[in-house]
């Protein structure tokens, strides 16, 4: 992990940047923001660790825990809302048996993420499964997909 962090730091020092950029790069290469990454950057750059944490917890993009192998993104935009996004999310949480307040299954397989708006309102309700957009969808459709993913051995 260290050399990844050093690379990120290298880039940061070259083109100059800020805490957010640094964290975005970190998450990009590690999938989340580990404690030791913050410690590392804080020591190397003399920027207080508390500031990294403040930024990391402010923006919804950043994760302090590893993300699941499969990512399901449910749009909660207004259009999706009026077309029953809540129902879908409810159904998915039930299917994935997500503990309250958690967005990733204990086995680290699935992460269910809710986003403000994917900007495909005309296709509401919209859900993304591992990057693939599913328009005019429903809980059942997605649940089927989840079951399918569970079955076939993960190739990634």
């Amino acid at each position, binding site marked *: 992990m260290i050399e990844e962090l050093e690379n990120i730091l290298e880039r940061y020092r070259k083109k100059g940047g800020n805490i957010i950029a640094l964290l975005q790069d970190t998450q990009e290469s590690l999938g989340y923001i580990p404690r030791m990454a*913050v*410690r590392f950057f804080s020591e190397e750059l003399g920027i*207080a660790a*508390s500031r990294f944490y403040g930024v990391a*917890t402010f923006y919804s993009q950043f994760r302090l825990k590893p993300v699941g192998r499969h990512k399901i993104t449910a749009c909660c935009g207004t259009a999706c809302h009026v077309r029953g996004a809540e129902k879908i999310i409810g159904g998915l949480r039930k299917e994935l048996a997500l503990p309250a307040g958690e967005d990733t299954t204990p086995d680290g397989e699935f992460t269910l993420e809710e986003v403000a708006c994917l900007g495909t309102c005309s296709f509401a309700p919209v859900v993304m499964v591992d990057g693939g957009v599913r328009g005019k969808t429903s809980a059942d459709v997605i649940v089927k997909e989840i079951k399918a993913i569970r079955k076939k051995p993960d190739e990634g």
Partner: protein
Amino acid sequence: MVRINIDGKELQVPAQSTILEAAKNNDIFIPTLCHHPKLTPFGGCRLCLVEVKGFLKPVTACTTTVGEGMEVVTSSPEIEELRRLVLELILSDHPNDCMVCEKTGSCALQELAYMYGVREAEYAGERRNYETRDGNPFIERDLEKCILCGRCVKACDEIQGVEAIDFGYRGFRAKICTSYEEDLDCEFCGQCVAVCPTGALTGKLWKLKGRPGTTKEIDTVCPYCGIGCNITAHVKKNEIVRITSAEDTWNEGWLCVKGRFGYQFVSSPDRLVRPLIRTAPKSGMPSLGRKGIKWGEVFREASWEEALDLIASRIREIKETHGADALAGLSSARCTNEENYVFQKFMRAAVGTNNVDHCARL
């Protein structure tokens, strides 16, 4: 200087001052919670909202600088309603335990709640609750009492340059955090405690020892380094229960961990309380912290009379047999000027030697 008008009063105020400063310096009261004169303005609590002619919405007095001919109204039914609502909202997410809170009596929030007669919250609802407590040995952090005014964050950054804490999360979940919410591990200067307007930050040693108003307060000087910070000792039942420093002292109320939290030595059970006279021969080697030595077997307690007589007679003997310069005295950089003066006078005039020094060099 610019000319402004606050509540009908024509005033001349420094051009760069904020409306709040201008008002304060002219004894016009504007309620505040997040503002602190020694820290940069924040504008979060919204209590200092005032009406400025020509502005569509009320502005915060703490962040708005005055302008020539500015007309300000600090109190109107609308403004007071807003302040009241803000207080109701703060209290709707604030524990109701003033009766056991260390801050009671010196709490800015309590004072304003009293002023505005806000009691049970009209907007009662969910309250933050944090089970985990910070395990550090100096500072009690009760974040349920935190009003997110940000003073502690600023003090830690702007005054102490440590930045051990910062705002974390957002919205209703916003919270003052250390990195990854570990236990506080900083310089423990306690500037954050000093600037906290509520009971969110207090000294762990203070707990239930006595609140301001119930203690005797004595202004004196810190017993530690050579800077001589001015401190106030809070005393109850002949015990120091709290050390604070006033904002108007030359050290601006800032202290370090020793000055603010290092006062327990005064009431230590290990203090010497009676003169001791050696009974056993010298072992030659001090214990250097080794435990289990029974001083009773080395020294015996004696009356002052006996001890002082003994000292006087031995000094006289040695002086007679070996001369005054066979005696020497070491004074202390921790004693007062008067005591040091007396000590050297004692060595020179009473004992008769210039063999007198102190630890300045060590």
